[in-house]
């Protein structure tokens, strides 16, 4: 669905912005439709593809209002961002613009295949930058198979100066989707908690950044502890927990107005806010006399519905992509375990039977897996099927917790806490468990929440 929209957008923009000499964009392979047959591509040949990503060309080197400088400098920066996207996630081994010749504007749509063959490039990403009206910039992006001497895909976008990195992410998304057959994910954002200070007096601030860590911004000052953010599906607001009034309550931060309001007034503590995939509902957990249960309330305001009613802690929750089911955490059996219920609270049943404790379940956006924290001494990130089968660990460290899915359901972020120092960091791992890396954040980070692909 998201992929279809993206391709359509690309096609529309290229129709407006690009000379139509090339054959139409071939539609990428249809994404799996949320089936349970999906297997992990553990030894994909495309991961070893040699991809050359030279500087994007420009027809005229003129100043832009972007942070990257003139159109020529911007062309270099665009290629660098695309290279970093494809390289840092362990997906490909691209060679970036610093190590490559700079193609001219005329070569963008007719690459010098012989030149690239002599450099052993198998794939080639070329593009151009042009200053558009009103300070905007137009970016074209082309993917070529060097061996075949053939264009595999193209797309173009006209973006505001502050959004130039989005054009690069969209280009990386096109390349990734075209070569892997997976859904794109680079053009997305992450909300998380930025942490500073000693272990017993950690300052915890709400912060946001692009999927590659750029455009970082703190949203709260740190005077009140902030925890567990969740981006709304339309990126317009963030739900999170704050001790702003001394008690844990759920606030909704409006990113357009920078204003925040209580989700609902309550004399009881509120935890664990979650959006439904369509943004129409909010799940929250409320403690009353020590007993915590899960509720849902229309995001625009209305009457709350109590979904669980067990003597114990029912907390968290994550909707299936179609919104029909909710996976959540409960200690009704004596320890934290993962349960599934219908979205109206009916048919609650346990799905985790692995020994130890199972916590913080998050349903994959493609529906085929549930990521969670497994606690048996150490805390580790694992995945299981929605039925509770095929449990696999993805990480093996002292303390990893709170997984969040990339928009395409192929990568998981979580936070890792160091023993003794208590220092935290946002990490990510792919579904093979092999490509694990720490995200660079200005200070320590926890509670990452990955938003959907941006439209």
């Amino acid at each position, binding site marked *: 669905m998201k992929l279809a929209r993206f391709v359509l957008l690309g096609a529309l923009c290229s129709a407006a912005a690009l000379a139509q000499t090339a054959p139409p964009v071939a539609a990428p392979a249809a994404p799996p439709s949320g089936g349970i047959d999906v297997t992990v591509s553990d030894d994909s040949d495309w991961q070893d593809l040699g991809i050359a990503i030279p500087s994007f060309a420009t027809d005229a080197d003129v100043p832009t209002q972007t942070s990257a400088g003139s159109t020529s400098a911007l062309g270099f920066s665009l290629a660098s961002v695309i290279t970093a996207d494809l390289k840092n996630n362990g997906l490909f081994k691209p060679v970036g613009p610093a190590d490559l010749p700079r193609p001219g504007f005329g070569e963008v749509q007719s690459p010098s295949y012989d030149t690239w063959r002599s450099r052993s490039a198998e794939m080639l990403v070329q593009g151009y930058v042009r200053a558009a009206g009103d300070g905007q910039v137009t970016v074209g992006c082309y993917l070529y198979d060097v061996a075949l001497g053939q264009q595999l895909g193209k797309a173009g976008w006209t973006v505001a100066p502050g959004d130039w990195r989005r054009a690069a992410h969209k280009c990386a998304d096109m390349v990734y989707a075209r070569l892997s057959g997976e859904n794109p994910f680079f053009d997305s954002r992450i909300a998380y908690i930025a942490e500073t200070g*000693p*272990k*017993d007096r*950690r300052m*915890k601030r709400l912060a946001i950044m692009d999927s590659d860590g750029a455009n970082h911004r703190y949203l709260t000052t740190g005077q009140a*502890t902030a*925890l*567990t953010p969740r981006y709304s599906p339309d990126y317009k607001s963030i739900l999170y*927990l704050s001790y702003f009034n*001394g*008690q*844990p309550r759920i606030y909704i931060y409006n990113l357009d107005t920078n204003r925040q309001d209580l989700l609902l007034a309550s004399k009881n*503590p509120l*935890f*664990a806010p979650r959006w439904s995939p369509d943004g129409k509902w909010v799940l929250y*957990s409320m*403690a009353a*006399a*020590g*007993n*915590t249960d899960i509720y849902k309330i229309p995001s625009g305001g209305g009457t709350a519905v109590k979904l669980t009613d067990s003597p114990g*802690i029912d*907390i*968290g929750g994550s909707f299936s992509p179609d919104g029909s089911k909710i996976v959540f*955490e409960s*200690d009704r059996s004596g*320890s*934290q375990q993962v349960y599934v219920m219908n979205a109206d609270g009916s048919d609650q049943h346990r799905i985790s039977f692995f020994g130890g404790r199972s*916590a*913080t379940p998050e349903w994959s956006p493609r529906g085929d897996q549930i990521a969670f*924290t497994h*606690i048996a001494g150490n*805390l580790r990130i694992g995945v299981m099927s929605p039925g509770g089968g095929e449990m696999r660990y993805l990480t093996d460290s002292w*303390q990893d*917790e*709170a997984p969040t899915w990339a928009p395409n359901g192929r990568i998981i972020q979580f936070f890792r*806490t160091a*023993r*003794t120092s*208590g220092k935290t960091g946002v990490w990510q791992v792919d579904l093979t468990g092999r490509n694990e890396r720490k995200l660079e954040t200005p200070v320590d980070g*926890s*509670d990452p929440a990955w938003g959907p692909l941006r439209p």
Partner: protein
Amino acid sequence: MNQPLFRNLALIATSAVALAACAPKAPKVLPPDPGNAVSTNTTGGTLEGPAPGSQADFVAQMMGQDSIYFDTDKYNIDSQDQAALAAQAQWLAKYPAKRATVEGHCDERGTREYNLALGERRANAAKNYLVGMGIDASRISTVSYGKERPVALGSDEGSWSKNRRAVTVTID
């Protein structure tokens, strides 16, 4: 590492409890060195002790019994906790105008959100016991900090057992 020292401290604390039982006016800490004392009004306590009915007085009187401790994932009140809560209730009964907050905490070896709920459950267990001892429920509020505010900073069982706690704080 400082095990012998710790034992000595514990011994001192125990004798202090015994002393306190016999002579309630006994100073809780040594008075300031006469040569350096410029003020007798320090928070550390003087021969007079903190103002009766204040949070400082509560802390001084409780001798550590302002906190109760829990086993991993548990929130039940054991006999040691009962003794501590009885002492708290006695103090609260003596100052009926005082209100208090019970802060619930967890060790670091659990997930963040669950620990928020578990801390709340622990704080409520302590509150319920105080109410059972005759303290008006409206005088006691609760707040959970989950694993966000440890007092012991190590990553070992000794530290974790100190962090799984409910702390009663009276409101001045």
